[in-house]
């Protein structure tokens, strides 16, 4: 699909979701459907789907070790290995765990991204390219902060870390209600990740609606959230009554909640339900990346392919036992001699 069509399809899909929620609540008054039923269905889809995915991955055999190794392998004792070698060519569990921590929390694979550039004449350079890493780390961590801040709607009393996060996030005390930096940065980072796909020709070529749709969806989520908090305002107490009803399994739909909230929660529901069917599964999949989470111990431990089935073999010894006499008759060399005739008693 070309880029224009991809962008149109994915943005129209998100816009369509907004319209569905708007018409459903504003026109048809389906508050229960959009505020209770769909969120529950979405969360169930999320959990069932993600567990199904992970179990399916777990069922995949790994016939050999495929860590991507970028460091000196463990070998003769006088060949030195630095910490980088130990992380990039891990042997034991500790090294693998270290590598996974750096991968999951610091996105090290993206950090190591390089870009090929041509120098003078025949010269080729590999330059470090950190923009993707930067955009994505800002995006993921601000999203995490936004998610944790939302715990104020889902817990009562709030756990101790929520007020701390709110305080740090609103450090500059700009605007009323206090502007949270994470919201702005999340929007900026998602926009950057979107523009990156659109502006760079190579990225544009490999991008599909499945890449654009989640970005538009997240931008839609952020926009409705920002509108609700800073611009059009919402009845926060009633909203918390609704969300607490959801988590305590005693759903209520209070009066006076604006349509905007239902649009927001509908987009969130679609986002959660979309997880197991899309690239967003990397949330669980990152832990199961075989190039990261296995140790490079092929020379230390014998790994037997789990696909191996019992093969019927006919060894040479058995073959010779079977045909020895015929072989001797035909003058073929045999390893063991002809069977001795049974001694008479």
């Amino acid at each position: 699909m070309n880029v224009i069509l991809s962008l149109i399809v994915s943005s129209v899909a998100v816009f369509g979701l907004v319209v569905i929620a708007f018409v459903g609540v504003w026109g048809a008054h389906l508050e229960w459907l959009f505020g209770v039923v769909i969120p529950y269905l979405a969360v169930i889809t999320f959990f069932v789907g993600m567990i199904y995915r992970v179990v399916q991955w777990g069922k995949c055999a790994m016939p050999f070790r495929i860590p991507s190794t970028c460091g000196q392998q463990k070998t003769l004792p006088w060949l030195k290995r630095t910490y980088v070698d130990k992380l990039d060519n891990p042997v034991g569990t500790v090294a693998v765990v270290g590598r996974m921590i750096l991968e999951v929390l610091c996105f090290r694979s993206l950090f190591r991204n390089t870009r090929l550039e041509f120098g003078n004449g025949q010269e080729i350079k590999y330059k470090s390219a950190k923009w993707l890493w930067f955009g994505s780390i800002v995006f993921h961590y601000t999203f995490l902060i936004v998610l944790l801040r939302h715990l104020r709607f889902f817990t009562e009393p709030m756990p101790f870390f929520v007020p701390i996060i709110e305080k740090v996030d609103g450090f500059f005390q700009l605007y009323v209600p206090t502007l949270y930096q994470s919201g702005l940065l999340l929007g900026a980072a998602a926009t950057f990740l979107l523009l990156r796909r659109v502006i760079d020709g190579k990225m544009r070529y490999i991008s599909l609606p499945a890449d654009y749709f989640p970005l538009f969806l997240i931008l839609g989520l952020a926009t409705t959230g920002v509108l609700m908090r800073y611009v059009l305002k919402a009845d926060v107490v009633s909203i918390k009554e609704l969300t607490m009803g959801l988590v305590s399994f005693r759903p209520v739909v209070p009066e006076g909640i604006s349509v905007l909230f239902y649009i927001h929660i509908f987009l969130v529901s679609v986002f959660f339900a979309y997880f197991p069917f899309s690239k967003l599964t990397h949330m669980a999949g990152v832990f199961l990346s075989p190039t990261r989470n296995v140790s490079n111990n092929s020379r230390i431990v014998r790994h037997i392919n789990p696909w191996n089935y019992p093969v019927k073999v006919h060894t040479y010894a058995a073959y010779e036992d079977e045909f020895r006499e015929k072989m001797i008759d035909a003058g073929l060399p045999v390893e063991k001699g002809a069977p001795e005739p049974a001694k008479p008693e």
Partner: protein
Amino acid sequence: MYDGGKIIAGIIIGLALLTFPIWYTSGRAAPKPEVKLPVKEKECVQPGPYMKKKHMQVLDLWRDSVVRVQQRSYVAFNGKEYDMSLQNTCMSADCHAKKSEFCDRCHNYTGVVPYCWDCHIPPKEKPEEKH
């Protein structure tokens, strides 16, 4: 399943983290807070639903108006004039005299920590009347 132990452990940890609000609440949602509305005064500077959503922006406007422009008079939606003052108008004896029975109820419930009280001193409440 290969490495079934590790995979199941991972699923359980993931489930436990992501369902945090559910087991933390464990089926008991705290009731919605009720604010104590003033007995004498029937009208605020704007209609109730407006104040419910936008009181912080009204107060922000008041602060800027008083501190930066020295304009202290506010014409309410019903034409009445009010002195722009959090402590003397909003929290006067006839209106929202007790922070703990008005402001704090919703703010605590929704985890809002306004920085009004960095500068303002809430009117004193008698300790025995506190809840």
